[in-house]
C-alpha cells in the first residue's frame, strides 16, 4: 500500500518530492498495489506528462482518495510531519490494542470508496 499525491482512476500515479523505496515496492508487490492518494485526477491530466508517472496503472488493484492519508507523517508539498500527533500515536501504540484507541480518537478523512479495478 502506497500513498501518492496524485493518481488517475486507473492507478497511474505521480509521486512528488522524494520517492524513498515506493517505486521498487510497487514492482515487487506480488499481489498488486493499493494506492491511497491525496487526489484522484482525470487520466487526461496524467497523460500530458506520462514520464512523470511513477506507478503504472497495470500494477495497481485499487485506488482510494484519502486527502491527508499520510498524516501524521509527511506528504510533500501538502503537509509535513505532525510532531505532536506523532507523539500521541507513539505513546498510545506502546500498549497492546493501542492502535484501535488511536484510530477511534483520530479524525480520518475518507472522501470516497475505493475505485477498485
Amino acid at each position, binding site marked *: 500500500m502506497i500513498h501518492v499525491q496524485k493518481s488517475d482512476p486507473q492507478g497511474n500515479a505521480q509521486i512528488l518530492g522524494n520517492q524513498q523505496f515506493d517505486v521498487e515496492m510497487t514492482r515487487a508487490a*506480488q499481489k498488486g498495489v493499493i494506492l491511497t492518494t491525496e487526489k484522484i485526477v482525470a487520466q487526461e491530466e496524467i497523460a500530458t506528462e506520462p514520464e512523470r508517472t511513477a506507478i503504472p496503472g497495470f500494477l495497481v488493484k485499487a485506488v482510494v482518495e484519502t486527502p491527508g492519508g499520510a498524516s501524521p507523517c509527511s506528504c510533500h508539498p501538502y503537509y509535513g510531519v505532525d510532531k505532536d500527533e506523532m507523539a500521541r500515536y507513539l505513546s498510545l501504540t506502546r500498549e497492546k490494542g493501542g492502535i484501535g484507541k488511536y484510530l477511534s480518537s483520530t479524525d480520518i478523512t475518507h472522501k470516497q470508496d475505493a475505485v477498485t479495478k
Partner: protein
Amino acid sequence: MGNRLASLPEHVVRAGNQMAVTLSRLIEDGEKVFHGVNSPLPMVAIFLAKKRHAPNCSLVEVAGSVDPKPRFMPNSTADPELCHGAASMFYNPDMYDLFARGGVDLAFLGAAQLDKQGRANMSYIGDPFHPKVRLPGGGGGAVIMPQVKRTVIWRTVHDRRFLVPHVDFSTQSGNLSHVVTPIALLEKKSTGLEIASVHAGHLVDEVIEKTGFDLARSSVVRQTPAPSAEELSALEELDPDGVRFSEFRV
C-alpha cells in the same frame, strides 16, 4: 486508402489481415502484453484486441510507453506518436524486472530460424566464425522467452529456411505457445510444434511441405477462422494506411 494499400497484391492483403486477427485473438483481456522492435503486425494486432475483445489488456511498448492512444498508426514501433495519450512510461529496466518476476503474460517476438522444439535463432546463419548472414541478435529475447508466460512468434514468410530441423544457433527458447505465419497457426505442445489450424485458401499438405521439420498430422486439422466483417472494418479504421502489411515482401 493510401498508395501502399492500392498497390498490394490480393494475397498479401488476405495474409496480412488473417495474421493480424490471428495474433489479436491470442490476447486475453487483462493481460500484460509486450512486443519486440520492428513489429508492426503485433502492434496493430494488440490495438485491435484493445478495441474489441480485450479492452483491459495493457500494452507496454518496447520504447516504454504504456497503453498509448496514437492519432495514427505509425510505421515504426519506435515512433514518438506511441507516447501520445499514454498515462505512464515503463522503461526497459523496469520491464525486464517485470519479466523476471513473471509479471508479463504475453510477448510477440520474431525469429530468423525456429525449430520444432521452439529454439529460435536470431544470431547468425552458417559458420559462427565466418557466418553467411550475421543476424541482428536476440535483443532481450534470451531473457524474455524463459520468463514470460507465453511467447508468440510471428513471421511474414512460412518456408523451410525459417522453420528448420536444427537452428544454426539457439539464441533464445522457452514458453513458446504459438507461431503465426501467412498460411497457418502452429501450436507448441510437449512434443513440439504442430498445426493448430490452416488459414483459408491453404492446404495442410502445403503447410507440411513448406515446413523444414516434421509436423505430426493430426486426423482433424481446423481451418483458422477467417477475419469477420467487424474485425476487418476495425482493422481498416485502426490502420487505414496498411502498416500491418509493411513486413511482407512484395
